[in-house]
């Protein structure tokens, strides 16, 4: 099997194909600290792409309550369990091997097995390329199974429950994990497809599934560790998140020719999401682009971390981890960078605070930003720690260097009149 470099693991790894990288890569950052699971993203995606017959179970975008919920049910626990069975006790990060010599270097090296490496040990026949599993039908039943979905009276379908709704009450911590396809650098779905029906676009790294080539073998559904490829029974082929590519490439009429963020990003009322395109080096790392907000959050401030990097697909979705969750759980989910990321996020410097203001001020893709210092407007304490706030300005620029917007730390709030409170 060819060897490729995976910067998220801090080492090379085996992958069924030779490395090939796009010029720019679709990527996103989600700030979990802000997510209240309103499911606006979920419904924006559903109402755009998966509202047809046969797609009822498909939620390309979903928000699940961790650690209780999941879509499909137990997806992450199941793949972690399979990996642990393949490499008992060996799924560990080696912090002494971490390098800080370049912005792309992680804080540690992963010494365990990825889903590609474990496949050799665990799977037969030899043609099996990726360790995975095929969820059963009932596991796809709900985008946040047993969690924040109100349920009606048993046996009475399609009827309004006049008694109200029933929601689970948790006795301990939890948080909301918003998920879409990670448009991985080393996609497991692509690696597993015997028809070569899945491809990664050279222009933006979006992973697409050619429906004319697909024969519905569901190898991609089995292989994707994030379970973001889904089988459609009435067409007998698989489908997946397309990253709203007409918006990203600026061909959707709404975009007026400029790159625009996806529907799930644009609908986010909690302002947790930012999506863009990052420049790539020829070795698969991100090219230095200091004032691209995604590059800044991932490689400079290092507050945004990949989801389950140990799986080995080099996902391009990054998360600012929730501050209140027990660290062992976060280490498992986001890798060894968690402690430093939370520390920086809790005590942001002026630039980080300004970049966080860029989230959802525009639906256009921000290509770069400029930071301008402003006067000090507050000095005091928060939870006993000294805090100083400066009214700095951050300016966002689009594809052709045009100014998209500018905002300040102490920005005014515009409230809609009651008449149009819910109109978008």
């Amino acid at each position, binding site marked *: 099997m060819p060897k490729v470099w995976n910067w998220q693991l801090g080492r090379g790894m085996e992958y069924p194909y030779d490395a090939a990288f796009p010029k720019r890569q679709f990527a996103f950052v989600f700030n979990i*600290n*802000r997510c*209240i*699971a309103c499911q606006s993203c979920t419904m924006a995606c559903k109402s755009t792409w998966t509202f047809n017959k046969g797609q009822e179970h498909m939620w390309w975008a979903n928000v699940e*309550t961790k*650690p*209780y919920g999941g879509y499909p049910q*137990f997806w992450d*626990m*199941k793949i972690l*369990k399979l990996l642990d069975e393949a490499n008992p006790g060996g799924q560990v990060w080696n912090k002494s091997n971490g390098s800080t010599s370049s912005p792309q270097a992680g804080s540690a090296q992963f010494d365990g097995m990825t889903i590609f490496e474990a496949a050799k040990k665990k799977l037969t026949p030899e043609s099996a390329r990726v360790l995975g599993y095929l969820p059963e039908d009932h596991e796809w*039943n*709900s985008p946040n*199974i*047993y969690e*924040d*979905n109100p*349920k*009606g009276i*048993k*046996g009475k379908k399609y009827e309004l429950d006049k008694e109200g709704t029933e*929601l689970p*009450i*948790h006795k*301990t*911590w*939890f*948080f*909301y994990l918003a998920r879409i396809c990670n448009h991985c650098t080393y996609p497991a779905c692509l690696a597993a497809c015997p028809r070569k029906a899945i491809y990664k676009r050279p222009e933006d790294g979006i992973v697409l599934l050619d429906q004319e080539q697909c024969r519905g073998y569901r190898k991609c559904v089995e292989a994707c560790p994030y379970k973001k490829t889904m089988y459609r029974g009435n067409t007998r082929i698989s489908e997946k998140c397309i990253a709203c590519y007409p918006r990203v490439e600026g061909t959707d009429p709404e975009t007026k020719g400029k790159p625009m963020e996806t529907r799930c990003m644009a609908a986010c009322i909690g*302002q947790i999401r930012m999506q863009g395109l990052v420049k790539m080096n020829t070795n698969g790392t991100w090219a230095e682009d200091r004032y691209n907000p995604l590059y800044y959050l991932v490689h400079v401030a290092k507050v945004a971390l990949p989801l389950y990097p140990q799986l080995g697909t080099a996902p391009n979705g990054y998360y600012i981890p*929730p*501050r*209140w*969750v*027990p660290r*062992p*759980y976060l280490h498992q989910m986001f890798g060894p960078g968690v402690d430093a990321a939370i520390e920086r996020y809790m005590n942001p410097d002026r630039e980080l605070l300004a970049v*966080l203001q860029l989230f959802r001020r525009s639906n256009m893709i921000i290509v770069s930003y400029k930071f301008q210092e402003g006067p000090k*407007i*507050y000095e*005091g304490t*928060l*939870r006993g720690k000294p*805090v100083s*706030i400066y009214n700095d300005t951050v300016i966002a620029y689009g594809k052709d260097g045009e100014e998209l917007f500018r905002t300040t730390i*102490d*920005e*005014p*709030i*515009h*409230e*809609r*009149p009651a*008449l*149009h409170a819910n109109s978008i």
Partner: protein
Amino acid sequence: MPYDDPDPTDPNMLVGVEIPGTAESTRDMAYVFAEEFARMGFNKTKLLRVFQTPFYAGAHRAYLELGDTEVEKIIDECLGIWGRKNSLAQSA
């Protein structure tokens, strides 16, 4: 939509092991929601509503555990830093 609760006797049902939070994790969660939404410009009334509404389960759990006075104290502290934003009402 699931109509049955998980069956703990089902051998195929994974059973999660609870990782207890620290005594401070609920307070941390309350601070995070108060601070994040204060940063977004929510005023005291709106922030309190996030905590009091059961549909925002995270904030509401903190509200139930910590109580009205404590949550209000947290909100006031966060608004002390982030609550000086000007509200501009748009015309219809």
